[in-house]
């Protein structure tokens, strides 16, 4: 039995590697800078991660189903611009549902192309990244969008409000994570997402309608993007057309950091949340230890590569592959 329990510890390490790395990072940064563990700092990091995090929740579904979504950044710009524009035209109470419907329509279009027409998701969503950008610019005429009466609107509650001292963006992120996490882990739909991403053919042979599952994943992803756009718009009450630019890669990074496989079939919402927090805390920690803001892009990349490497190494039990 001795040998067995040793193996089991190894298994636990392999499964929880990301969590352990996270704790190690936290300890290292805390030693480097006392301010790091300050409650205000922690809350600040989580709040600024919330937009990225909300988007990452949806992308987790897409990635587990075996596809990619590179359009979320530019789709988030679209949502933000649209809701800001409509805010003054038809009032926030109508602007919000109108923006959600438009964003969901974009998600449905992608879902249709990838799910039902079976087009490659990388090509479709990369194309959508630029197409939606064009759509946003056409809609806004290229101008920044601002709410006229910034002080007098209740719309600011989603980005700036707080309940019982907790910022609303964090509450939205937490609530959505709980709902989507339960959906993925506990419902038949969640099970089908894993099956479709794990082995699409076997899923079809089991009577699962693959196209529908993929379609639903993109619809969910666009719902999360719309929510992220709402928080973004409400926080700044004004925005450029490029507010979400580059977020697609950070979102994907968070999902991978969490340990979802790009091959599909594995990952969880909980792990994605950990991935989002790691990314947020690392970026914050680097600022606190005095690294230049732009150097973060490089360091973030290095950390992602390290994370992916350690993940694979844990799976195969050594740091490099013996097979050429």
């Amino acid at each position, binding site marked *: 039995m001795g*040998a*067995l329990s040793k*193996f089991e510890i190894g298994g636990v390490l392999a499964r929880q590697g990301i969590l352990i790395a996270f704790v190690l990072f936290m300890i290292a940064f805390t030693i480097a800078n006392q301010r790091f563990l300050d409650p205000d700092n922690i809350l600040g990091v989580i709040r600024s991660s919330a937009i990225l995090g909300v988007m990452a929740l949806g992308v987790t579904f897409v990635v587990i189903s075996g596809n990619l979504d590179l359009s979320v950044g530019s789709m988030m710009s679209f949502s933000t611009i649209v809701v800001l524009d409509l805010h003054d035209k038809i009032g926030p109470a109508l602007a919000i549902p109108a923006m959600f419907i438009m964003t969901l329509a974009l998600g449905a279009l992608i879902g249709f192309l990838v799910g039902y027409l079976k087009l490659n998701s990388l090509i479709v969503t990369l194309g959508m990244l630029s197409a939606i950008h064009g759509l946003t610019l056409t809609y806004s005429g290229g101008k920044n969008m601002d709410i006229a009466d910034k002080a007098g609107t209740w719309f600011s509650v989603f980005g700036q409000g707080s309940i019982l001292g907790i910022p609303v963006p964090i509450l939205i992120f937490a609530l959505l994570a709980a709902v989507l996490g339960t959906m993925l882990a506990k419902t038949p739909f969640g099970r089908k997402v*894993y099956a479709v991403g794990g082995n699409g053919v076997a899923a079809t*042979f089991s009577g699962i309608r693959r196209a529908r599952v993929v379609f639903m994943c993109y619809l969910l992803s666009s719902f999360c993007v719309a929510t992220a756009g709402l928080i973004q718009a409400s926080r700044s009450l004004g925005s450029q057309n490029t507010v979400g630019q580059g977020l697609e890669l950070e979102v994907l990074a968070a999902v991978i950091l969490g340990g979802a496989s790009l091959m599909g*079939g*594995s990952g969880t919402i909980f792990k994605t949340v950990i991935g989002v927090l790691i990314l947020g805390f690392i970026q914050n920690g680097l600022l606190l230890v005095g690294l230049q803001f732009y150097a973060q892009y490089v360091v973030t990349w290095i950390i992602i590569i390290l994370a992916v490497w350690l993940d694979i190494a844990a799976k195969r039990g050594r740091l490099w592959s013996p097979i*050429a």
Partner: protein
Amino acid sequence: MSRPDTGQTPVLRLENIVKTFPGVRALDGVSFAVMPGEVHALMGENGAGKSTLMKVLGGIHQPNEGQIFVEEQATVINTPLEAKAKGIVFIHQELSLAEELSVAENIYLGELPRKSFGRVDWNKLFAETNEILGKLNVSFDAKARVGDLSIANQQMVEIARALTVDAKAVIFDEPTASLTDAEKVVLFDVIADLKSQGVGIIYISHRMEEIFKITDRISVLRDGQYSGTLTTAQTNEDEVTQLMIGRSLDLSRNVSHGELGDVALEVRGLSCGHLYQDISFEVRRGEVVGFYGLVGAGRTEIAETLFGLRDPSAGTILLDGKEVRINSPAEAIAHGISLVPEDRKGQGLVLGMNCRDNMTLPQVDDLKAGPFVAEGAEVAIFDQYRDRLDIRTPGWRQLVGNLSGGNQQKIVIGKWLSMHPNVLILDEPTRGIDVGSKSEIHNLIRDLASQGYAVIVISSEMPEVLHVSDRIIAMYHGELIRTFSSEEVTEDNLIQAISGIRSDKVA
């Protein structure tokens, strides 16, 4: 079949090999040796540790304890490439080919012949490959894309790989599981050839006829432990079975003729392009209809049509007397049809998913407690079929990909049995399943029929179709040649029929 000369040194020797996985002691001190020019069978139940032992030899797994000797030299084998360099060739149970590449590239992967500037010498590559394929007498050539080949032909590609190196020992892990009789003959010739060159051969199979036909000695594993070696010429099936599972089997032909019910499935004039033409048959409740024929005879394609995976070009399908159109597996399942597909890894299972979730996948929408999957009900289903099919796994949480091949197949069977279908179609249901479980599955199929299920069994194994079927449909090149009742069928007229010879129906 002479007993190997005891004065010789073994080509391969394993001593006290121990290999554990989380929660599983797969090998528990196994010792075993192969002599040059010997065909050594390795037998044991599903999950006994045969593949694991071979993976240790092939450099895929590292043993926790124990030693490997190649020609009596203690050796450590770290990678499959090292194994190959030491003259150990491993033909896997689960196919491991690159589907997008040609046959030739797969066979010479990693060592493609080169011209100047590192360019691949395609002419040489294809010529050498075709030469090897010629020896194997196969119907495809070096340029064929592997993904387009049938499973049996892919297996032949794996075997062709073994012939490209100067092998000291060749391991065949269930090579015949998906081969036709004709292909088996070719394989056995290849084995005889290797044997005469002094190569040591380890041969894993669950098929007794083969074992007794081609092997010299039989070693048996049981629950990860070595349980004995027998000389083939001096033993019999019963003795081997005893050693494997600790009891003997009743292998009598026990076709029961219970009351037949109504026609559950009727097919009239069904055609699908060039795959099969004008097929008509019916299956009654309480009846098992066997489909026998060579690979490529169109049997699997008919099953796929009934399961909504192919559109028929003509003909009608009637379920309980009502004409239906079945456009997708989801619709087929809704109509009460279950299909155990022929390719468990590609079509039957999500390998990265656990045992329970795989088993309940087709009914996950029906197993609900509120909006959630009723996990308790799922575990109950899993437990029920684990016991009924004797599935060996540490628990339902184990990933299906970590189970032994035969236990994976049982998960697929359990998955479709638990749907309680009206019409159950099984395509090669006992591929890779050990003798004990095989007879249990045959009994189960008979039981299901007597409970009123309508069952179709597609099999390339004659004993299997003969054993379980009430009627046998023989197919050849997409045509239904003849339907036999269990009284009129004999091995001879069955073989004739599947070779396309239409003897007139005798009254």
